[in-house]
């Protein structure tokens, strides 16, 4: 396989975007990425979206988007892996370029969640329909059960969970594309409305409309474009049982650990070499367990590490400088691509107030369901 670069990025602001349709959102992000790269065509595209059928009643979206982008005829495919759909789109684009089949491929993600659907129902379709959702369990409910198991096993505290949200809002406050650009404190999180005990409203990522796109290209193309680009050093994935109850350790996310092991091996790096990370904090507990699975801390120690400031901007390893899913917003299909965009900005040195000094190596971790899928990318700055 040949080496692959990301040469362009583009996204819409994340939020409740009542005036934008699914297709509009995607086209805006895709055009921004194409313009950023300065390419005059693309050879194909992959679009991550979790459930456009249930959210807005539209399937067959890849052709729709190609048409609406003014590129009828271009090969396009929709990929789905629940909340990891965007990361999978980037991974498919990576493969197409790495294999030599394509030179310039667009990887995008989009979700229009605020169009009247029963969002809690739609999101729960990423769980086992017949054996989890049938009993009334929701997505926050599944992560709440992971949180309860983690608290029970390791003594993780309610305060430590809240500190994840506080940190991510601190970062999102500095991100012009974030849905909730506001700082919050620990007490506000701990007194917010109960959603699924012990998780409260401010432990949960919001319901968001948005789209994101990146242009993936061969190194030859990247060098010719003479613009800043980053190298995809690793693209790794792993799956796990869909149902949480089928896993041996309910306080763990084994798919993250497996994907991380593969990614570190591919890139030839260890976790301590990574300068900045975007991880899938769909719920505060998720960020803690993911930190443990990525090898940033020992099992059970993530809560204390977050409260001690290890993952803040300026800390040992900044995590979710974009504000994460929590503050930036979580349009499910777009999230994995937006994570890659944040890391590209960091590696370009273009992250403004959120910039991590001398960031050379970044990681994105995007996860589907309650950990039934996980895709990880490691990106490297090219001078």
């Amino acid at each position, binding site marked *: 396989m040949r080496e692959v670069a990301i040469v362009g990025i583009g996204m819409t602001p994340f939020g409740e975007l009542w005036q934008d349709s699914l297709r509009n959102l995607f086209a805006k992000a895709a055009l921004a990425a194409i313009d950023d790269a300065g390419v005059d065509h693309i050879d194909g595209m992959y679009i991550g979206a979790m459930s456009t059928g249930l959210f807005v009643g539209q399937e067959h979206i890849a052709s729709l988007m190609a048409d609406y982008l003014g590129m009828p005829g271009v090969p396009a495919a929709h990929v789905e892996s629940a909340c990891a759909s965007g990361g999978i789109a980037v991974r498919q684009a990576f493969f197409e370029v790495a294999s030599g089949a394509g030179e310039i491929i667009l990887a995008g993600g989009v979700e229009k969640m605020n169009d009247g659907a029963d969002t809690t129902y739609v999101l729960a379709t990423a769980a086992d*329909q017949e*054996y989890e959702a049938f009993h*009334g369990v929701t997505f926050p409910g599944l992560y*709440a*059960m992971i949180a*309860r198991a983690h608290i029970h096993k390791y003594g993780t505290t309610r305060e430590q969970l809240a500190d994840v949200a506080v940190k991510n809002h601190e970062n999102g406050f500095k991100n012009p594309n974030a849905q909730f650009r506001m700082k919050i404190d620990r007490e506000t999180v701990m007194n917010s409305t*109960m959603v699924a005990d012990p998780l409260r409203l401010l432990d949960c990522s919001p319901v968001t409309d948005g789209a994101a796109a990146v242009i993936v290209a061969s190194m030859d193309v990247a060098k010719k474009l003479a613009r800043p680009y980053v190298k995809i050093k690793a693209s790794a994935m792993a799956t796990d049982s869909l149902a*949480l109850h089928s896993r041996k350790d309910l306080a763990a996310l084994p798919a993250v650990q497996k994907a991380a092991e593969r990614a570190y091996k591919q890139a030839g790096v260890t976790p301590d070499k990574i300068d900045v990370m975007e991880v899938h904090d769909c719920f505060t507990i998720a960020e803690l367990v993911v930190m443990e699975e990525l090898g940033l801390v020992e099992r059970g120690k993530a809560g204390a590490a977050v409260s001690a400031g290890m993952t803040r901007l300026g800390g040992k390893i900044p995590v979710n400088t974009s504000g994460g899913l929590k503050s930036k917003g979580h349009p499910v299909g777009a999230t994995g691509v937006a994570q890659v965009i944040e890391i590209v900005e960091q590696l370009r040195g273009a992250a403004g107030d959120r910039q991590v000094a001398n960031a050379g190596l970044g990681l994105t971790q995007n996860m589907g369901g309650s950990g039934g899928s996980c895709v990880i990318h490691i990106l490297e700055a090219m001078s």
Partner: protein
Amino acid sequence: MIVPRYTREIPQRYRLEAGKCKKCGYLAFPPRVVCPECGNRRFVTVRLKPAGTILTYTVIHVAEDNFAAETPFAVGVVETDDGARLTAQIVDCKPEEIEIGKRVNLILRRIRKEGHAGILQYGYKAVLQR
């Protein structure tokens, strides 16, 4: 959910029927075609013991539309005494009474009315052993 999708699962929902791997004894609930532990494809049908232990739980305050009228309600992961794991509502108790490690019995209850037709759907729920 339409009727065939519901009726297909009745052996599991009403009778806790699981597949026991003929090679390694792994209990698959619901039944599977391949054993995730040893790769064997031959199973024998067994009924799970309708009692077990709470491994983790939550109390749901915001539910999807089908369950919206029932909030708050508790849901947990239960390990049955023969070692299978499943998700079930924990009922007939106050949420404060639920703890990890507490013993439960699995009983047949109405789960919900589904869709516009209001099809009644039944299945197992957990009640604390007292």
